[in-house]
């Protein structure tokens, strides 16, 4: 019993820290609410999809921005737009904020700015990926010892 409570406490602490540091926002909480008996791994699936999406989009953007002569800002913008949409769907607040800044650089056709933003996006994305994977691991541990995942409001 103590192991479970400890793990649950750890989970709650970690979750609130993610919120506090701005990695996730309320949308992520909403996603947790959608997880139930029928779709027990909803959040994990959404997160995995998001990570795949992110990687694909980041690669696209990197390729587009690499070109020295004519950068196709429209393509970059489209990718950023997609990334923004995905991140706001999952509740990845920091990624979304970077995307917003990214978009303005794209509109201004500022290659330097875009590259900087791309770097930031990549950084934020990998941070978020680590955090979420830790969170999911905690969930697995709780389930393994027979406990239930606490619902954090």
């Amino acid at each position, binding site marked *: *019993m103590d192991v479970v409570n400890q793990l649950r406490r750890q989970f709650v602490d970690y979750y609130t820290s993610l919120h506090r540091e701005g990695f996730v926002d*309320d*949308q992520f909480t*909403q*996603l947790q*609410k*959608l997880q*139930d*008996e*029928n*779709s027990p791994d*909803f959040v994990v*699936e*959404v997160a995995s*999809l*998001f990570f795949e*999406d992110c990687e694909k989009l980041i690669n696209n953007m990197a390729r587009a921005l690499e070109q020295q002569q004519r950068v196709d800002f429209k393509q970059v*913008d*489209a990718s950023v*737009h*997609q990334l923004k*949409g*995905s991140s*706001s*769907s*999952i*509740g990845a607040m920091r990624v979304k904020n970077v995307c917003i800044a990214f978009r303005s650089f794209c509109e201004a056709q500022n290659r330097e700015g875009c590259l900087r933003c791309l770097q930031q996006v990549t950084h934020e994305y990998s941070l978020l990926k680590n955090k979420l994977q830790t969170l999911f691991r905690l969930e697995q541990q709780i*389930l*393994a*010892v*027979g406990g*239930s995942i606490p*619902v954090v409001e």
Partner: protein
Amino acid sequence: MESCYCIEPQWPADELLMKYQYISDFFIALAYFSIPLELIYFVKKSAVFPYKWVLVQFGAFIVLCGATHLISLWTFTMHTRTVAVVMTTSKVLTAVVSCATALMLVHIIPDLLSVKTRELFLKNKAAELDREMGLIRTQEETGRHVRMLTHEIRSTLDRHTILRTTLVELGRTLALEECALWMPTRTGLELQLSYTLRQQNPVGYTVPIHLPVINQVFSSSRAVKISPNCPVARLRPAGKYMPGEVVAVRVPLLHLSNFQINAWPELSTKRYALMVLMLPSDSARQWHVHELELVEVVADQVAVALSHAAILEESTRARDLLMEQNVALDLARREAETAIRARNDFLAVMNHEMRTPMHAIIALSSLLQETELTPEQRLMVETILKSSNLLATLINDVLDLSRLEDGSLQLELGTFNLYAVFREVFNLIKPIASVKKLNVSLNLAPDLPEYAIGDEKRLMQTILNVVGNALKFSKEGSISVTAFVAKSESLRDPRAPEFFPVPSDNHFYLRVQVKDSGSGISPQDIPKLFTKFAQTQSTATRNSGGSGLGLAICKRFVNLMEGHIWIESEGLGKGCTAIFIVKLGIPERLNGPRLPFIPEVSTSHGPTAFPGLKVLVMDENGVSRMVTKGLLVHLGCDVTMVSSSDECLHVVSHEHKVVLVDVCVPGINGYEIAIRIHEKFTKRYERPLIVALTGNTDKVTKEKCMRVGMDGVILKPVSLDKMRSVLSDLLEQ
């Protein structure tokens, strides 16, 4: 004879007389001359004589008388005128001096006489002083004796030495013939001869204590002369001689309790010893006062010394006793500590040793559960997991005997499925029962609520223990488990009149009966069943193992659940029935987090608001598409997803009630879809409701949506509540 100056006398016939006168005068003169010389000589010798000038006068007087007589020697014959003149002169002088002396003597003689009286007085005084001096010397000697005696007596704290020394020293100081000490016996009614001076080992003479002479001695603090014939004084064999005087003195025997500061002057002690002292028989000695005083002082000193010795003895004895007790206590404490430490070590080691494999089993079984398993395997793994959880709980309970005993164990209440508990127990025992070829049947009453509030684990443990016992002690036959809600008349066990279950609205009493056809229990063993570690001695149980703790633990749990457990049996070989009643709570609503997903038609506040609502979602972004789908599925909708407008138009049908279109995707005109749908479904009732999902809700977007005929706009990101409310609003219209 008159001498004449003219005639020269001749030697007459009385010449002889003349001769004699002549010689006498000569000698008188001699004497008269020598006396002053002697006087001078002796006065010179003694310096003290105060009357020197009287002596001088006397001397002069005598010298002159001598001179006169000497001169008269010449007057017997014819003598010249010079001689006569000299004679006359000396006679005159003699006369003068003698008269002066006579006159002087008148003064002197009284003085001389008074000297004599003074001398007498002084002699008397000297005699008196001598006497007093003698007295003081005696007293000082007595004091010295007492000091010496006290020193001897007090130089030891051993009672026997004290008494012996007293007698010896007294005997020596006072030169006694016999000295004896009579001590009161334990009963206090007699005095026993304890010590004597001369006889080494006195025979145990006793004398009753209430003799008048003894009372007389005891009532006075002074030494009392007693008759030599009284019983206490008859210490020496009667001899021919007159026995010497005997004196007796009391010696108070003080106890520790007598030493109170306030009561010091009056020693209210009842116990005295008697000291008897006898002077030597044939001497005429008498007891002098100072000797009596000495005896009294010594008696007091002896009393003090004896009481000191007694105190010392007592305190030594007490100290020895305390030391013994201390040693014994120390030993006992060390033994107890060793035992406790051993037990704690054992518990700690066993704790760790037992828990480690348990953890491994539980952890690995749960991991195994996560893998791909066939349904049978899954069932087996779940059974393993449940059993190991139970075992882990059991280990906790067994190793925490002390927690059980002082009642600090608390139930962990939660809502659980009662039917599931019974089913699990059944599943757990089915394999064992089939091995032993026993029939097991489970009957759950229809009015038994499905869910209950209580400690699921402990309830399962109790049921399992009881059923397990039934299995253990049955070799053949059947076991039936019945569970139903106990009504008030069946709640009371006649053997436990203090058990008054009171049903209420929030609680019900679960009654479980486990009947087996096994070896049964004899009536006298029934009370012992629930005591720890006690096992019945019948042959059937000897080989069955077990710690004897099971039923005790069950009883404890049942008590915690405010219930009662008992066993009925007709006797050996007639099987037995174990019955227990526990109090469980009734849950008000079904709101456990792990409830199966039961779709219900309820208000829109319930989790499933729109059962079976067909919704079409068009979103190019995979993530947000998935999120939206999750939302709608959670609300109970039947969701179809498309990722392009063409696909959307292709799929949409009149079955779809709602179409959710993401309009903020660049390149895809969501608005166009709306127009197309409008074109497709001309009839209003066939057309699905079109809702736009957009990231910005400025006026322009809203107007555009309205213009193309959208029915609603939702701002992304969508929360569950928002989706629900929008849908319900839309569907109400």
